[in-house]
Every structure is written in C-alpha cells, then in structure tokens.
C-alpha cells in the first residue's frame, strides 16, 4: 500500500499522524521542493520514527558519529564489515564499548528530532510512503519516538523561528482538541494552558490576555500542539456567498416540508424505537 501526495496540500504533520495512528511500518520518502539534493527517508516501525537520513549510500548515521568524533577511525574502518548487522548500529557500537551512551542519545536527537523539525520549514514537496520497508540497521541508533513527542521536544528547543513564522497560527485562530488526544504527553505550562482552553470557542488572541504572555509565545506553543496532532484549528468564519447567478435564473420553488420541519422541530426530539426498527427493516429490504 502506497500513500502519496504533496506537502502543500497534505502536510508532513498530517502524513506522519496517519502513519502514527495506523501504527505503520515503512519508509516515508520526502523530496522537498524546489531544490532538494536528495530525498529524505523517514523510517517508521509500528508508527514510531526510528531513523531519518538523506544519505544516498545509507551512511548518514556513521557520518554523523564521525563528524562529531564520537567514534574512532579504527571503528570507522571496521564499519565496512557492518553491512550484515543484525541489530541497530547504535546498539552494536554501544555494546562494543565504541560509543558512549550519552553520545548515542545525542546522535538520535540530532538524527531524528533535529532533522524532523528542520523538514517542517519546507512548504512544498512530494511524499510517498511505502509500507513494510524496514530501516537499514546501519542508519538506526536503536531508539524510536512518536511524531508528537519528537515535534514537541524539537520545537521547544528551536531558537530560530524565522522560516516558520508564516506557518504559525493566526491570533484569530480557534483551536479544538483532537477527539482522540489522550494527552499522554507531558506538556509545558503554556502548552497545557492552551490545551485547556482549546474548546472550539476561544481565539488565541483571548488566550494572550488570559496568560499574559507575548502573542508570539502563544502562537509558537499553539503551533507545537497543532503539529503534534493534539489540537486542530477550526475553519474561519463564513463569508458571504459570491456566486454568479447572471446566466442562470434562480428558480423559485415551494418547499413546504423544509421550513416547517426546521422551524417546528426541536433538536433534542427523539425518534421512537418503533420508527427506527421499521426504518431499519425497510432499508434492509431494499439493500
């Protein structure tokens, strides 16, 4: 099964949430536009991200460890033999005493969390998710993380928001909690406040008043909740219709049942069980 589309119409957050909710295993290939040198591969196992790399020869993790000087040249030369690794490279190196545990953790943060957040700055690109493709062991640290957790952690640490300013929710945005968000993640105090007020009626501009923080802080925290799939921004207010009716005269139709029904009915009125049983029987007889 392949899922494909464009980032301009179905965001990285959206596609990652689909993979997360479906607990899918596979590789999301992401070619960002307009000038991506190599596509990024994001590998998932049961919905959790295990590795990200845009190295064409799948040496991204080794290169990262080498650049940071976290592994020695002797280890690097031995790595030529690692094509047949049966466990993630990070775990292997740690078990051999060739990589310190804290460096392994840092390498995952850089490889996955930092790179993932960097990918959100791109507004356009094409994606294709292929299921049942396992991450190469040589690109894996051995850690995994959910998209929600990775984006919350990553964007909290982000210092330079310049490229993301245009993606921040507007102050007139109204947020609503996701119906399936169980809030298993630990939110910071500002995120928690916004979460509590995300009831589909309170615009961010009002939240600014409640929490006495700069609007930008509110927008960034709301952005984190949106990207993590914990809330959604509701549609803007309806605008007046602007349809061209010149070439087609409007028909005047008497529709008695509609205004009568809409005016007289109570939204809370209940349908009798006998009606429902009859209706169900009637429909089944027609199916």
């Amino acid at each position, binding site marked *: 099964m392949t899922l494909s589309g464009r980032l301009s119409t179905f965001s990285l957050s959206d596609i990652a949430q689909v993979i997360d909710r479906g607990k899918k295993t596979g590789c999301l290939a992401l070619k960002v536009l307009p000038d991506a040198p190599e596509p990024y591969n994001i590998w998932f196992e049961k919905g959790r991200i295990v590795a990200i790399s845009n190295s064409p020869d799948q040496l991204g993790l080794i290169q990262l460890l080498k650049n940071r000087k976290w592994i020695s040249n002797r280890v690097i030369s031995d790595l030529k033999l690692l094509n047949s690794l049966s466990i993630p490279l990070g775990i292997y190196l740690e078990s051999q005493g060739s990589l310190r545990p804290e460096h392994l953790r840092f390498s995952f943060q850089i490889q996955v969390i930092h790179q993932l957040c960097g990918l959100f700055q791109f507004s356009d690109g094409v994606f294709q998710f292929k299921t049942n493709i396992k991450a190469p062991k040589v690109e894996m640290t051995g850690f995994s993380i959910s998209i929600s957790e990775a984006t919350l952690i990553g964007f909290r640490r982000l210092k330079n928001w310049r490229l993301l300013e245009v993606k921040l929710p507007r102050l007139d945005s109204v947020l609503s909690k996701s119906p399936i968000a169980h809030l298993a993640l630990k939110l910071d105090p500002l995120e928690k406040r916004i979460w509590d007020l995300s009831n589909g009626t309170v615009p961010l501009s009002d939240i600014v008043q409640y929490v006495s923080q700069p609007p930008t802080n509110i927008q960034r925290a709301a952005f984190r909740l949106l990207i993590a799939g914990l809330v959604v921004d509701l549609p803007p207010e309806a605008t007046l219709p602007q349809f061209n009716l010149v070439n087609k005269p409007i028909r005047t139709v008497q529709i008695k049942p509609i205004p009568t029904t809409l005016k007289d009915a109570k939204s809370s009125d209940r349908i009798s*069980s006998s009606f429902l049983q009859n209706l169900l029987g009637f*429909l089944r007889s027609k199916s």
Partner: protein
Amino acid sequence: MRIVVAGTVGAGKTTFVRTVSEIDVVDTERKPTDLTADVKDSTTVGMDFGKVTLNPEMVLHIYGTPGQIRFDFMWELLISKAHAYILLVAAHRPEEFATVRQMLWFLQNQVQIPLILGVTHTDCEAAWSVQDVGYAMGLAEGEQLLPIVAVNANVRKSVINALIVLVEHYMAQTQTTLS
C-alpha cells in the same frame, strides 16, 4: 427522521441524496465562480432535499449541505436540526482531508448527534484505503469514535447500506445516552 449529508465539494452529497430519494431532489445547484469550478460544473449553494417514505406517518428526510465551508451558516442550520449525519470524504483527494477533518471537528463542536464517515471514490486511481482515510481524519487504531463506511453515491444499494449503518449507529448512541 432528519439525516444530513455533509462533505466537501465533489464528495458526492447531491448524488447521494438523488440516488436514494423517492422524489425529484430539490436542489440549489449553481455555476461556481471560484476554485470549485475546477472540480465540478455546478455546486450546491443552499441545500439538497430528498425523502424516503416508509408509510404516510413515517418519512425519512435527507438534506445535503453545500460543499463550501463559507456557507457554514447553512450547515449550522441543517446540522442543528438533524438527528444524525454522514460526512462524506473523497478517498482520491488527500488534499481535501485536512478540510474534512476541520469540518468533522467543527460539526462535533456544534452538536452532539450521531455521525458516521462515508468514504467515496474508493475505486478511483490513487484512492487511499478506507482505513487510511480514517487515520487522516484523526481516528486511531482501536478507537471506535465513529463508524466508517465505503460509499458509492451512484449505487442505490451502497447508499442504503450507509443509511443502515447510520441508523444502527443512531440507535446505539441514543440507547447509550438514555442508559
């Protein structure tokens, strides 16, 4: 009983109502002047209305909403008076999933009435699976927030099957509420 069929432009709402209605559907189709014109030649600006009569005392009314979200005043009017509704989403247009998800949560904020998700155009090229469309709507594995059903709005049996699922869901929901 009043049922509302909601969804984005071109998801199949008008077709759904026409396919199952026993009367000529009262529609308010007009030539679109916006991006809707890329999807279809005419679009609903008011509502579609059809009905199914069991007997003179028992009638099922089916209302189709306009597709554009800018007509949400009409949505609110219809949804607030509905007993249950089905939200249609076209499986081959992932670019609209975010909008449908917004609609879903917008509607759930407006009213607490039974809802099912109807996935249309599942036979089109590049269509997502029904399950993946559910995930794109914000539903998760093992979460039974609402039933999801594949619907071919052109096929009467398929539409009736969707109505059966909706009525069954309504019965289950109202029983839960009462108990």
